């Protein structure tokens, strides 16, 4: 992972969010307040704009800037959660290039940030249910000696599986929890955007 790849990743997330905005909103409409698509779009378009004006020295600088921008533009639950995650991912990556192993550790810091802030656990029907399996798959590939692209592909697949697995869950955190048993049968919007983020990483890395 290097500075340019990090930037391209964020741009790819922004493009994916643009494309899937209505889907995210529709999912959030079923068990939330119908704003997840526009929240993500507002945040990531602001992030790419912020990055355009930045001459970063490190991978971390790109990702911290992304996180800070998300925090200051998204609002809602996803703003602090994703913003905090990107800041946590970026913080240890203070070099122009980082290894897949370093990146895996950073991704783990990101998940820790989400869990700390949101106090949610796997199975609560949140973004964590996509993030946690994605991280595990990424780590496993890296441990097995895979490169970034291979690890990211495995992570994206795992995130999408995790995302789909949220459908039968009953939400315990966030807005969907207010629906009680009626949250069952709907895919979580945040888990869906997390899957987009890992898919964007995989596509960016593979294209390289």
């Amino acid at each position, binding site marked *: 992972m290097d500075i340019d790849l990090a930037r391209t990743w964020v741009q790819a997330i922004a493009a994916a969010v643009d494309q899937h905005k209505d889907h995210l909103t529709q999912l959030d*409409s079923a068990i939330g307040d*119908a704003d997840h698509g526009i929240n993500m779009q507002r945040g990531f378009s602001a992030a790419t704009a912020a990055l355009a004006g930045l001459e970063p020295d490190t991978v971390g600088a790109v990702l911290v800037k992304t996180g800070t921008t998300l925090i*200051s533009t998204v609002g809602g639950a996803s703003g602090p959660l994703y913003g905090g995650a990107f800041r946590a991912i970026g913080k240890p990556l203070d070099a122009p290039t980082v290894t897949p192993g370093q990146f895996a550790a950073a991704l783990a810091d990101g998940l820790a940030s989400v869990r700390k802030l949101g106090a949610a656990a796997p199975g609560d029907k949140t973004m964590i249910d996509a993030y946690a399996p994605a991280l595990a798959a990424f780590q496993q590939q890296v441990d097995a000696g895979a490169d970034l692209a291979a690890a990211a592909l495995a992570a994206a697949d795992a995130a999408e599986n995790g995302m789909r697995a949220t459908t039968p869950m009953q939400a315990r955190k966030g807005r969907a929890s207010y*629906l009680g048993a009626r949250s069952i049968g709907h895919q979580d919007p945040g888990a869906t955007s997390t899957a987009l983020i890992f898919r964007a990483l995989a596509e960016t890395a593979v294209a390289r």
Partner: protein
Amino acid sequence: MKKLINAPEAVLDEALAGIAAAHRELTVDAENKVITRAGGTAAGKVALVSGGGSGHEPLHGGFVGLGMLDAACPGEVFTSPVPGQMLNAAQAVDTGAGVLFIVKNYTGDVLNFRMAAELAGEEGITVETVLVDDDVAVQDSTWTAGRRGTGATVFVEKIAGALAEQGADLATVAEMAKRVNAASRSFAVALTACTTPASGKPGFDLPEDEMEVGVGIHGEPGRRREKLRPAGEIVATALKAILADQPLVARDETIVMVNGLGGTPLIELYVVFNEVAAALAGKGVVIARSLVGNYVTSLDMAGVSITVCKADADMLSLWDAPVNTPALRWGV
């Protein structure tokens, strides 16, 4: 979607410009999206700051003014404002006496206000936070993010705001805010879904003869769907849930709000209030003060929320204290 707007993404900015044009007693910082009193906050006064997603008007901007809020930070529709905005609000109104953040209990609002409190602390501003969580449709259990904050926000802002105006210190104001929240319960039903400008579609489909029972104020479906029933039965359901959680006995004094969710005619709210008054009178419970109207809305949703606060003498006298805001005004 049918809305009197120009473009979904312009709604908040243009509404803020409209608020600025309509209310000279308010100052609108268009860039930071912060609404404050035009006269500023009196020296030494504890400042009250609230905020949350837009779409609940007159909440919160309509409650900025003497005896209530010092600043409001409106987020995008149904989206919590961002920490920087809250920090801006706190900086604009802090007199050194500290700032009370009044936060409705939603994950987004809680997280963003928590970050803002940290940022404000770093800037040397003393911040206390009160979480409003009055909605008894949602049980506070490990299965939820806790109860939602809805109608009681108006009670907390009015009563704590009056106390701050009288010169109480931050700890005292915060404690009263928490007492009011602890004494308040709400329950709401929706007859229609609402449509956000960005999504353009109603949040759910509801057959012509059904209602959503136990809804919040963000267009989400409620706890359950039922056949539409007469106003008297709906009120009985709401009061049962409220009183199960906060028992009231004869001669207890209350402040009651019958609040329209945005698309309900006022004549229906009076029909509902009549039922609430009759039901509480039947238990000997006294409605000492009341509000009937649109105070905490959910865009164009048809429906009603009922909020009951078991009020002590302090709360009642603070309720009666002067208030001068666009949406609540008396004694001035």
